[in-house]
């Protein structure tokens, strides 16, 4: 049911029901070569150019497991506090689909490489410990392009094309245990989890975690049960929710929709659902009754994986500083409150601020620009901060120009806008647009005198001690200099003359 009129308003839904959420995250690993062959994993190559008999599943071809991919998976497992299997096998997941070269996917079934870990997630100052059920390794499928239809979906398409470059790229699936007790902040918790996981994966150097390129993809599970109920409700699984904002929206929508189903005395259908980016709703996909029987069995073409304990410990020892520890260190270094820090994390600005600080800006300035002007721009354009066309080094340069008095905050915004608009480096923009502050005392004095002469009434008020009125004169100076005057110096000069 996706009749929007029948949705239960969010707060009302939460007043009656308790949500349980769960996430399955697919991550393309950043290994040089594919999971079972030597083809490159480079994104954006000519379709079907990075293929060979193995990743095309040609008759007679055989897979050979990529050691680096196994190492990356163990690295992820260790960072998520998981146990690493001493012996496990790949399994075949059998189903027919044109973008599956062998019509089975080499995956892991009941013997995942990593099990039973956790990841702490902070939402509004509260820490939730999200249990990790498993982390397993598999191969990605090819990519189907449905041509000639209006929606880009298979229904209504005239024909379909398949690009097998993606087929065989190593893919890790991180599955959470059911997350309970989040209540009304379930959507935020889901988003915070994906954000935290993404940051963790990035810090491990195992994936470029670009959601927009599909290297990190989420399936979102949601169920609702009346408060105090002994059992959880029936869950739905919303597939391919591929931005942080969408994760939040999908959870929210499912809560509103399932509440309406339950309110009407109906049962939530266990099914997979599709998320629609355009209007934020989910629609029904395959139900459990139609669900495929994947006929899993151990992959006979591969030998079992038995990671040597010494190797696992070497990997553990080589783990970098993880985001949670780093946050604690940076918070202390930057002298920020918990709330400030949470804000930075939630905005996905931590790395950006850190890199801006590294590039020479103060932590306060870096935070101000990323959470202020740049966050506003990201919101307006509907992109993530990190995806903005501006580098931390450029932000640091703008900050340095302000510190040096070359520009003021207001001009700095113009410079940032210029960088975002692709007009070049900050210095070049200042130069090209003549944005440098008028620091020539003579010119400024002239402007001040002109402003006083042009506004005798206001000047009188200031003379009478109404110093608040000085702002109007400063405004006149700024207008006359097209904003390039140093406002505080102008104020000083005006007050010198009138008091």
């Amino acid at each position, binding site marked *: 049911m996706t009749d929007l009129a029948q949705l239960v308003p969010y707060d009302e839904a939460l007043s009656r029901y308790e949500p349980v959420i769960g996430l399955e995250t697919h991550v393309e690993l950043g290994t040089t070569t594919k999971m079972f062959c030597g083809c490159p994993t480079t994104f954006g190559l000519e379709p079907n150019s990075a293929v060979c*008999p193995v990743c*095309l*599943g*040609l*008759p*007679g*071809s*055989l*897979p*050979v*497991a990529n050691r680096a991919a196994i190492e990356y998976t163990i690295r992820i497992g260790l960072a998520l506090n998981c146990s690493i299997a001493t012996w496990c096998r790949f399994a*075949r997941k*059998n189903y*027919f689909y*044109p973008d599956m*070269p*062998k*019509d*089975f996917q080499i995956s892991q079934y009941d013997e995942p490489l990593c099990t039973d870990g956790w990841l702490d997630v902070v939402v509004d100052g509260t820490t939730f410990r999200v249990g990790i059920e498993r982390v397993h390794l598999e191969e990605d499928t090819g990519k189907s392009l449905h041509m000639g239809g209006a929606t880009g979906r298979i229904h209504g398409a005239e024909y*379909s094309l*398949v690009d097998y470059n993606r087929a065989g790229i190593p893919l890790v699936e991180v599955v959470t245990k059911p997350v309970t007790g989040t209540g009304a902040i379930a959507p935020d918790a889901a988003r915070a989890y994906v954000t935290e996981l993404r940051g963790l994966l990035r810090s491990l150097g195992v994936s470029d975690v670009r959601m927009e390129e599909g290297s990190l993809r989420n399936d979102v599970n949601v169920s609702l049960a009346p408060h105090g109920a002994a059992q959880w409700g029936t869950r739905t699984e919303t597939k391919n929710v591929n931005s942080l904002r969408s994760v939040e929206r999908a959870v929210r929508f499912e809560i509103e929709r399932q509440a309406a189903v339950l309110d009407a005395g109906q049962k939530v259908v266990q099914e997979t659902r599709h998320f629609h980016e355009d209007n934020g709703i989910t629609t029904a996909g395959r139900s459990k009754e139609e669900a495929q*029987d994947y*006929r*899993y*069995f151990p992959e*006979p*073409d*591969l*030998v079992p994986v038995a990671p040597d304990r010494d190797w696992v410990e070497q990997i553990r020892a080589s783990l970098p500083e993880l985001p949670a520890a780093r946050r604690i260190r940076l918070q202390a270094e930057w002298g920020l409150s918990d709330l400030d820090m949470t804000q930075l994390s939630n905005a996905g600005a931590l790395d950006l601020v850190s890199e801006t600080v590294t590039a020479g800006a103060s932590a306060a300035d870096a935070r101000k620009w990323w959470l202020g002007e740049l966050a506003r721009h990201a919101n307006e354009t509907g992109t993530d901060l990190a995806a903005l066309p501006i580098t931390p080094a450029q932000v640091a340069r703008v900050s340095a120009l302000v510190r040096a008095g070359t520009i003021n905050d207001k001009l700095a915004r113009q410079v940032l806008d210029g960088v975002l608009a692709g007009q070049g480096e900050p210095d070049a923009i200042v130069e090209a647009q003549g944005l440098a502050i008028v620091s020539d005392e003579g010119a400024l004095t002239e402007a001040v005198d002109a402003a006083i002469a042009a506004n005798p009434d206001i000047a009188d008020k200031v003379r009478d001690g109404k110093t608040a009125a000085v702002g109007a004169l400063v405004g006149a100076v700024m207008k006359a200099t097209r904003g390039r005057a140093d406002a505080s110096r102008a104020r000083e000069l005006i007050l010198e003359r009138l008091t």
Partner: protein
Amino acid sequence: MATGDAGTAGELTRLTAAQIAAAVAAGEVSAVEVTQAHLDRIVAVDPDVRAFLHVAGIGALAAAEDVDRKRAAGEPLGPLAGVPLALKDVLTTKDMPTTCGSKILQSWRPPYDATVTRRLRDAGIVILGKTNMDEFAMGSSTENSAFGPSHNPWDLGRIPGGSSGGSAAAVAAYEAPLGIGTDTGGSIRQPAAVCGIVGMKPTYGGSSRYGLVAFASSLDTPGPLARTVLDAALLHEAMSGHDPCDSTSVDAPVPPVVAAARHADVSGLRVGVVTEFSGGGSQGGVQARFTEAVELLESLGAKVVEVSCPHFTYALPAYYLIAPSECSSNLARFDAMRYGLRVGDDGTRSAEDVMSLTREAGFGPEVKRRIMLGTYALSSGYYDAYYGKAQQVRTLITQDFDAAFEQVDVLVSPTTPTTAFPLGERADDPMAMYLADLFTIPSDLAGNAAISVPCGLAPEDGLPVGLQIMAPALADDRTYRVGAAVEAALQQRWGGPLLAQAKELGETAGETR
């Protein structure tokens, strides 16, 4: 030597691989002459035998010329350089079709060579063409080939065995001194036995599966077919060894099979007769020849004891769960999307419909039967009772072998319960057909080494009987040592090879077909 000289060319096709290689190396005959003689033989007899699906005359002559040029230039030649070979059409070849005996791959040209194919070429072995087989290696008679059956050179009205029946028939009909087969449940040894030649299933993983179109991945093993034990050993050595492209390939030196084939001595060797396979289950003449072979081994100094392998009787049902399960997954890729047959793609049908129509039209009944059996056995709710249970049986069979090999060095049994049966006799009775592999399946399930060598003719039908010699994994050399001893003693008794007792094909051609 003129290629039209039938007498001399005929003699060339009667030579063993070892003799041909020696003659080529010595410059007594050119590889091109040898190859042409075999191509001529194919032209003469293959219309009756139908061993080949594809004859690559031009490519074969070019490969032979290459060997001759190397010899002339004084470059080193491998021990089988210039020897022609018949390759089962289940191994990929980039210059020839690879059909697996199936309509679904009728038009497919692989873009790559199987590791075995490449090793043959590197060894200077001349690939004459691709041989017929039961579709996707599923069968024991070649009658499941989409392109019609091959015929047993001993009696063209009978099956040559299967699934490697084309390669076995080619070797037995002197169309090639060497053949490559693949063994999943007996597909090398059973055709070797019923064609009166030597066929060896190496230890699983001893020869690479890369480029072998999979039937059952955990069982498939490529191996040699030849008219002598030494020839089989020479080919075994040339085709084997670790392959980094096959994860299940054994990373160990190839067992010293050629040395073993030259060391035909069984004195002091402990030979176990498998109780479960030596009872009354076999045809009378098969049982008689087997008993004689055991007595022969004893007379040659071997210590013979009976050994019970109680779980071997469950091997056949376990095999018919494991092999179809793997096949149902392995054969899923034949979906018309990327290569091979495509049926029903008229612009109105969905991809799923085209897949379905293609598989319906492209697979034969036995392949469909096994895909359905395997799909069922792997289904949720049935997995533990079928596939899971079969894997437990497999472990028990391996344990039977382990226990047996603590008492004896090799185990022996008849290779097949019967001699070659008439074409068509079991075509409509899958269970009867499956029984042809009763004695060969245990070694496949355990992954160890087993050979079939000729041990005489069954008196009641005058058709060849095979002796199976089984050894532990990686002890492939033992089977050659015993096989060579049996071969030497029997050939002395017969006054020549068993095949010499077969009627000339020219005499029988046309009589039974």
